[in-house]
């Protein structure tokens, strides 16, 4: 038993996403030492705010990071993914705007009410997905395909086919900056969500029960865990994340476009979970991994844009990098790598032993 531990062991399962971030940072620094410089600018409201590539990366990944947290719980409990989060976010966003449009004046209270309405509708659709998965035992991807297909149509109906815009300083505070605070609000919301999840894990048995159900449902049931409820709960939790992400998206733009809001976000979300070192087959999970995974994806996108890659080509380049990441993180490569390191160490040990003998 050697006391020395490899880099992989020290970083643990977060090795891949952390190394990916490291490489992206180094790459960008070489390419352009100014890439990560942060400046203080004044925005339209006259607030002093932070700006720069790093800020836009962290800010831009917010919705993805929030969705990835919820997706991690669903993945862990159900061993499958929800592919309807983008569509569900459009529904939540539409509801948010609908409520805001129906009041005379947008105040703090009405924004909170609108957000709660968005939450409720997202949780209801989450429960719908959850029921299909937990009660009717439909595979998550198939079950959520339904909402994936029809979600944006439902969003369209909510506002009668229009793409209404809403304007209010309070919304700006939700979607961009709170006056006096230089950090973008969505970043703060990610931190808040992470804290809420941390508290959930601390003050409930969510983590233990979710992992138990995900790893061995039959045993979990025989230990008295209500597996159906745990799965349903995971979808409802994801519903809350969807509402938060959807309302951020709406607030950023000041309008709801049911066709484009968080379009294709589901695949990036699932990818964030995977890059974060979580098994898509369920069971053990690490929320931090998924969050880092979200930032990896966003940093990659921004890097590509900064390199003047045409937006039509970005997806292709992204795919290349992701293939590399996923292959490096695959069990086959991991095994080969740890064997390689082990061999190397053994050879070194043998060599030092020999040299000692020689010296003697």
């Amino acid at each position, binding site marked *: 038993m050697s006391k020395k531990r490899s880099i992989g062991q020290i970083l643990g399962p977060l090795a891949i996403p952390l190394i990916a971030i490291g490489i992206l940072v180094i790459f960008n620094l070489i390419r352009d030492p100014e890439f990560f410089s942060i400046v203080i600018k004044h925005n339209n409201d006259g607030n002093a705010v932070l700006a720069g590539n790093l800020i836009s990366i962290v800010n831009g990944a917010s919705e993805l990071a929030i969705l990835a947290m919820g997706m991690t719980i669903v993945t862990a409990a159900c061993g499958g993914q929800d592919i309807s989060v983008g569509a569900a976010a459009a529904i939540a966003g539409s509801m948010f705007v609908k409520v805001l449009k129906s009041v005379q004046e947008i105040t703090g209270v009405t924004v909170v009410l609108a957000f709660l309405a968005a939450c409720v509708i997202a949780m209801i659709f989450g429960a719908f997905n959850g029921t299909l998965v937990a009660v009717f035992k439909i595979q998550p991807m198939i079950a959520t395909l339904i909402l994936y297909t029809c979600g944006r149509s439902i969003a369209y109906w909510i506002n009668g086919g229009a793409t209404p815009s809403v304007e209010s300083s309070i919304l700006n505070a939700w979607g961009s900056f709170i006056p006096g605070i230089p950090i973008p609000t969505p970043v703060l919301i990610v931190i808040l969500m992470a804290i809420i999840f941390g508290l959930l894990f601390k003050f*409930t048995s969510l983590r*233990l029960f979710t*992992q138990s159900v995900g790893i*061995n449902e039959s*045993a979990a049931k025989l230990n*008295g865990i209500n597996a159906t409820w745990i799965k349903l709960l995971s979808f409802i939790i994801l519903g809350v994340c969807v509402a938060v992400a959807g309302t951020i998206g709406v607030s950023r733009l000041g309008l709801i476009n049911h066709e484009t809001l968080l379009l294709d976000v589901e695949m990036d979300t699932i990818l964030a979970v995977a890059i974060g070192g979580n098994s898509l087959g369920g069971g053990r999970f690490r929320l931090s991994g998924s969050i880092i995974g979200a930032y990896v994806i966003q940093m990659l996108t921004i890097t590509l844009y900064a390199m003047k890659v045409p937006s039509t080509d970005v997806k292709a380049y992204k795919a290349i990098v992701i293939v590399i990441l996923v292959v490096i993180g695959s069990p086959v490569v991991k095994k080969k790598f740890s064997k390689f390191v082990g061999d190397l160490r053994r050879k070194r040990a043998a060599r030092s032993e020999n040299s000692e003998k020689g010296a003697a």
Partner: protein
Amino acid sequence: MQEASLLELRGIEKRFPGVLALNNVDFTLQSGEIHALMGENGAGKSTLIKILTGVYPMDGGSVTVEGKKVHIASPQDAQNNGISTVYQEITLCPNLTVAENMYIGRDKGLMVKQKDYEKRADEILSQLQIPARARQQLGNCSLAVQQMVAIARAVDMQCKVLILDEPTSSLDDKEVNMLFSLMRDLKARGVGIIFVTHFLEQVYEVCDRITVLRNGELVGEYLVEDLPQVQLVAKMMGKELEELNSLSETEEKKSATGETFYEAEDLSSSAAFPFNYSIKKGEVNGFTGLLGSGRSESVRAIFGADKVNSGTVKVKGKPVKINKPIDAMKNGIGYLAEDRKRDGIISELSVRENIILAMQVMKGFWRPISRSEQEAFADEYIKALNIKTASRETPIGSLSGGNQQKVILARWLLTHPEYLILDEPTRGIDVGTKLEIQKLVLKLAEDGVSVTFISSEVEEMLRTCSRLIVMRDRHIVGELTGSDLNQAQVMKTIAGGEAKNNE
């Protein structure tokens, strides 16, 4: 010996992180012999077999088949060298048919005539008298039949070396005998068989030689007639075993006379026919019967593990509803499931998490046990039950079978049950641990806990139970107490009056 042995392993070494699983182990197998590989859990039997079958690479040593040095890097290599294995846990695919399972992964070309191999499979199945049809879905067969299909698969591969890793742990006596006659048949044809089992009697029934491992090292190789059973156990455990005898001789089985703890009338579930049953405080009883007689189904109904259809249940005289496991747990009932891997362990979670699981469920979702308390509980039970694990944070899946079982036991003991149902707690685990579990059962009863102890080894039940409930064809057909508690009477009751013509 002039001729080269069929299989020779020399100086085998295998390391896992933190452990030397095999240290300079030799093993020799002649053709036409049945060779028992014995040792406690963690002795290295499974590791040795996994090396031989190409599942694990070895870190040192050599493998020679019929005088030729071979390199086995994958299960495919092992098969090509005529080495076939039937594992302890079924490794077939339950959603394929029996025939598909027998021929999967062995097709030479892409074009396979389904009819041909179905016909072939049926021939072999009937030759071996295995009650399965080629086109039946494997998952619908009983565990025992699935095991036999796995053997049929190996037989069909014309293997020279057949490894049977705990093949009998889920078979009843009749099926075991069928397997033994099959093994003798193969032996006569010159196949060398490596037989791994925990049933000592079976070793003496079919084997020619015995190799004993302990803690990853070779203890020795013996002819069966040179090594009496008691000595074999001593060699495996590395200590003389007065204990083993003392348990059966001196421990007094007290017939409980206290109040009734649990009482069920006309209890039935989706898997169990209606039955009446009761157990007293501090009583140890057992359900016995052939495989499929309904003993597991009955205790599962008591625990609410299957859908309960009917029945009135009283706990301590008060009527209660037990429809789900959590209901049973809240009434002080614990249930250690028969299939440890499927229904017991949460394999990727740590020993600590596995120990506190049931207690956490009882405390509820909103009242998590603090980390420091969890660690204290885990440490307490790791010590109390002598669980061998690298640390409390080790995933339970990497422990040996016996130690996994102890963790599950700890899980239920931690809930301080008043009635503990143990369904095959000793299956597939070593003699030492079996003994520890039996002692534990008697100690629990002394402390006033009611225990139902189910084992396919009748001697174990006779040693621990003061009452045996005998089942046949999913009905209770008798209850034995007092002087009736002996093997002959049990067999007679299991067989019943019209035993002769029974299938």
